[in-house]
């Protein structure tokens, strides 16, 4: 019975993904170091172990053999934090963040999490400007991609944290009305998804998120055809994996852009019929997905723009 070491775990995980030592070590450590780690001649530092595993899509929360009991607590709180962010509940997120800070370690991934989390909370609670928000996010991403800003990330095997950070950064640019810059960043991240080793589920969630933002922003800068195409790609992913949560948004993006083109005379007025069909589909999918705000929004839009009543009157819902 052999004693398996962290090097073995890294080697076995790497082989199961069929990636080379060069691909895995790029930007984390030298190929020689990785080779020594894998053959057990050298033990990885905790930072290197975490960075290598994270690049291979292994979620830290599942790295039970690496963690102590206090780590389990921190990781569970981190998940809670992300849940509150997703629900736009920044006050609760901050309360959880204060608890996390009491127990947080000082590895690179810990620091990256902390800088990102504090930047988001402070910006959303309007304590810092959008420029300061951007500075914080960039400081965080530089921790694991030291050459960020001077290299293209289109071929970078982005990890989950890094992709999340890029989405945050692009959103910050968009909220500063710099849609062009926001689109550039997301296009790069979008291309990088193809060589990411992230697990499939996470990758798909990011792809949908990225395409949704891209389609919105292309529309806002007037590139309606591009916006529609990206939204269609998003719908294809939803169809392939039977995902419903972003579907109504994609369908709305398509019709919104078509409506703009009709108004500008770029599409014939008859296309309004198609738009209404898509909107109806969006309305009922959002109802089925139990997304009341989207349902209400779409119902009002259909009523105003097409003079059509849809769904049940409020009192019999």
């Amino acid at each position, binding site marked *: 019975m052999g004693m398996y070491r962290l090097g073995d775990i890294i080697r076995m995980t790497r082989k199961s993904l069929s990636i080379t030592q060069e691909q895995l070590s790029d930007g984390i450590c030298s190929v020689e170091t990785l080779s020594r780690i894998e053959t057990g001649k050298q033990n990885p530092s905790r930072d290197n172990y975490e960075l290598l595993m994270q690049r291979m899509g292994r979620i830290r929360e599942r790295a039970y053999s690496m963690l102590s009991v206090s780590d389990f607590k921190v990781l569970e709180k981190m998940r809670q934090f992300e849940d509150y962010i997703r629900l736009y509940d920044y006050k609760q997120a901050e309360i959880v963040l204060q608890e996390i800070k009491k127990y947080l370690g000082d590895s690179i991934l810990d620091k990256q999490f902390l800088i990102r989390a504090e930047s988001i909370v402070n910006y959303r609670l309007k304590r810092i400007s959008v420029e300061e928000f951007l500075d914080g996010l960039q400081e965080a991403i530089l921790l694991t991609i030291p050459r960020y800003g001077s290299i293209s990330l289109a071929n970078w095997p982005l990890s989950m944290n890094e992709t999340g950070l890029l989405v945050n950064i692009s959103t910050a640019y968009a909220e500063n009305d710099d849609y062009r810059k926001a689109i550039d960043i997301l296009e790069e991240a979008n291309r990088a998804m193809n060589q990411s080793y992230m697990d499939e589920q996470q990758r798909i969630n990011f792809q949908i998120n990225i395409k949704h933002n891209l389609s919105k922003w292309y529309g806002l800068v007037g590139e309606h055809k591009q916006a529609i195409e990206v939204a269609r790609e998003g719908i294809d992913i939803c169809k392939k994996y039977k995902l419903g949560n972003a579907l109504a948004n994609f369908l709305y993006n398509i019709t919104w852009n078509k409506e703009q083109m009709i108004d500008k005379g770029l599409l014939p007025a008859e296309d309004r019929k198609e738009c209404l069909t898509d909107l109806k589909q969006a309305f009922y999918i959002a109802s089925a997905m139990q997304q009341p705000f989207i349902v209400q929004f779409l119902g009002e839009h259909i009523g105003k723009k097409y003079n059509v009543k849809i769904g*049940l009157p409020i009192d019999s819902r």
Partner: protein
Amino acid sequence: MGGKAIEIDDNKLGAAIQYFREIHQVSQSKLCKGLCSVATLSRIESGERDVDALLLETLLERLGKTPNQFELILTDFDYKTYQKREQIKRLIDNRETEAASALLASYKKMAFSKASVHKQFVVRCKALLNELQGGSIQETIELLKKAISYTVPDFKHYRIQEYYLSNSELNIIIDIIQRLIELDPKNQDKELLFQVLDYLDEHDSLEKNNRLYPKVAILACRLLMKEKNYDKALEICEKGLERNKGSRMLDYLGELYLIKAQTIEAIQKALKDGKAEVCIDEYLKSYYVFSFCEEKVAAEEIRKHLQEEYQWECIA
């Protein structure tokens, strides 16, 4: 870069199991029931190294956790059996039954005597192979029952409430239920189905169980509707939808809304009262989910029904 040498010299996975077990307030005896003795679980929790990887995986899975697989691999035996299991699963997915059978035989030689989880794996694969090779449903059901009994010894009395089950174990039980219904559409043997539903209802703290609930709810609703017990069917259907809230997935939704529409329709008919638009609304949700998922037959049936029953022509 500095940093202490980290070697998995003692098994921290044990600490993880103990931690999650205590969070979920599960006793040692309940967690390990059918898998290993309480004494063995105690040794695992205190960091003993010589533990079968598949056993560790099942323990963590019963607590709703998915581990990094390679971390569980502590011995050569674990590594070889892990690789074989993956290969067998792939072959079965690709319907290469002969190659799968051959590999399964060699796996059996290696691992069958080691732990109940290995026996369960072997017999479950046999059941799937029996089905792929055109064997009888009865035989498949018997094999699946045998497979689940390795880790749920009381299964024949259907006493699953006394266990804390993993997703794989629940899936074997659901496989059995589906085949029982296929064999006997009225399913005289409803007890198991409703036990699983109750089980999932009581164990709703684990996210994964929330994904299973709609699947089982659909089976139960269809059965209740055959018995014309529409009130109960509607109640379970609505619970299924409630539990599906927040999930990103579309699967099961078309079916659940169809059941909702049909049960409301039946209740309204019996009462000779009710608004047609309430039914139509539920039918339309179902229609649009089915048609997006390209389940054309199901979608077309709804369209026709709406046209005939309600003279509804508004689907484009």
